[in-house]
């Protein structure tokens, strides 16, 4: 039960959770033959996303950050298994410039701190070694958040990595199999004409 509770917290999608899984459109069974519903699959399932917002050092740091902040558990995938860093590479790349800068300078800072302390990149250090670098994440919550850009980046990355993980196909599929009604379903409003 504890694991389920964790998943519910991560998902934070009360509307979605309220819907039964069978509320989703069902596959074609009795459609008239002249109006077939063509089933398709999504890109994530068959292809590897191209990353390019962050350079290799930055992306390596982001992957390590994901591994530390949202690790896999026995029965649930973590950030790496759900492609959360790759997704954030895309998401941040299409975000307003301030967000891009926050991430790039934050990831650079992670590498600089790791080099300064251990003469290795952030992607090469252990979770225990990363602990002092990630100390700003132990600051108490405040409404406005920290002023320091590095602390601000760490909090943003924590939130984004958790959400990107919890909203992934891999994660939702695991939760859905365990819990009646599943997770990650919401009422989507289609664009107006």
């Amino acid at each position: 039960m504890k694991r389920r509770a964790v998943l519910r917290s991560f998902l934070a999608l009360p509307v979605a959770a309220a819907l039964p899984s069978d509320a989703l459109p069902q596959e074609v069974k009795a459609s008239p033959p002249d109006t077939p519903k063509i089933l398709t699959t999504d890109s994530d399932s068959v292809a590897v996303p191209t990353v390019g917002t962050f350079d290799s050092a930055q992306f390596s740091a982001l992957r390590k950050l994901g591994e530390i902040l949202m690790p896999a558990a026995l029965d649930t995938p973590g950030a790496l298994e759900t492609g959360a860093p790759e997704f954030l590479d895309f998401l941040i790349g299409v975000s307003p410039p301030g967000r891009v800068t926050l991430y790039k300078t934050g990831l650079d800072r992670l590498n600089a701190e790791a080099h300064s302390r251990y003469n290795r990149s952030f992607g090469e250090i252990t979770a225990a070694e990363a602990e002092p670098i990630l100390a700003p994440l132990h600051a108490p919550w405040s409404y406005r958040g920290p002023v320091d850009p590095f602390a601000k980046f760490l909090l943003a990355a924590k939130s984004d990595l958790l959400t990107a993980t919890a909203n992934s196909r891999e994660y939702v599929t695991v939760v859905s199999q365990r819990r009646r009604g599943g997770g990650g379903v919401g009422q989507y409003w289609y664009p107006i004409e």
Partner: protein
Amino acid sequence: MIDHDVLIIGSGASGGMAARELTRRGIKCLMLDAGPPTDFERDRGPKRVYDLPYRGFGRPGRFPHVTQASEFNANLWADEKQNPYTYDPASPYYWVRVRRIGGKTLVWGRASWRLSDFEFKGKDHDGFGDNWPVGYKDLAPYYDRVEPLLRVAGRKEGFPQIPDGVFLEDSSTGSESLDRFLAAAKSRNVPTTKPRRATGSLASSVNLLLPDALATGNLRIVSNAVVREITTDKNTGLANGVHFVDRRSKREFHVQARVVVVGASALESSRLLLNSGVANSSGVLGHYLFDQFYVKNVVTCIVPEARGGQPRRGLMGGSGYIPRFRNLDTREKNFIRGYAYDFGSGGSPGASYFPLYGEALQKELAATSGAQFSMTTMGEVLPRYENHVSIDRNVKDEWGIPALHIQHKYTDNEFAMAKDSMQMAEELCHAAGFEVLAKHWEMVPPGESIHELGSCRMGDNAKTSVLNRYNQTHDIRNLFVVDGSAFVSGGSQNPTLTISALAMRASEYLAEQMRQGEI
């Protein structure tokens, strides 16, 4: 060619109510709305979050001012690029709009509280601002009729600051943690009650008001009609129609009218009047803008006995409301007027509250799952002349209509109230035995509560108000504004119930004036 008596602009709480009341009295109405109708079967449907292009994050930068927008409901809200507005960057304003038939009644929170003479006659109470030209006794009969229409459920308490009404039986349940909180509040003479909310799977103009109007055969609705300007007769000065633009084709139209009723929502109505250059002999049009400030999750607590991730049955659940309790029989030193709270037991605190990560965070989230108790403050914002809207001629919307410039700041009174609300909330939660996980008093930006009010206020003096006590413009007797822009003050109560009651009253008056040939 006119085969309608009244032209109604807007189809939400106020426009919908006007249409219902006027058509029932045999008056032919034509309604214009800037948005399309909603086909609930076609326009929405279930989706998995991972099937959305942005995994539930939404397209970055699409809605910088609509914190309510998610990737699921993004297409429900008015597009900010198509519908721009401006403000001083030092004083941001979050203008949240819905452009569909039914307006914001498609998404409102449904809380339905009556105003009282603590608001209608606020100046008599503390000397600030102006009284409304109407009192509670004037609105009470209309509240009595609106509540059943909206199917409001609630509990009668006898509190003078939120007068009782005509309620459906409240069937909500409580819990042990909620009872503890209620006891803590009672010991400090802080009043509590159950929520008062419109019920039903949908509680909107589109299912509660417009069908009645359409059933009379006296209403026609034109969708996708973006109204640009109210036109007037050069000889009489009376309103004689409107120019509008088709939202999709941008084709221009003019439609004539004998009477114009504006219910386009507070700021859109004032924008339309300002762009039309009408009803502003007082110079007050656009001024005295206010809303209700929110301190979202002013306290977030953990109910200790619920720790462990599996609260025992009956411990958690339920919600309630604390009506204004400050400055009723006593006087606070630091602020006038008052605030209210929503509170609720249950749910799980978000990960951001915990200064943890990795496995430690997951353990803590598991331990506190379902153990949350939280409160949100809703406070009165004082109506001030300097908080106002004007037309920004340099910025136009998608249809070439000049945009609004919004100037609104909270002042010391609101800040003092917000701080007081945090202290009291913390005190109550401690007294209930809850662990306070987080507390703050920072208000959301003006506008975010979606309770924008005023800017076209009513009053008996034509030199200091735009509308008379029946929502009729002082300047043009066949022009009415029936939405929240008419408010003189707002209290801390959610405004839709009062907007509806005022629109019903104004429509009844208009119908009688038309029957007598006065309009």
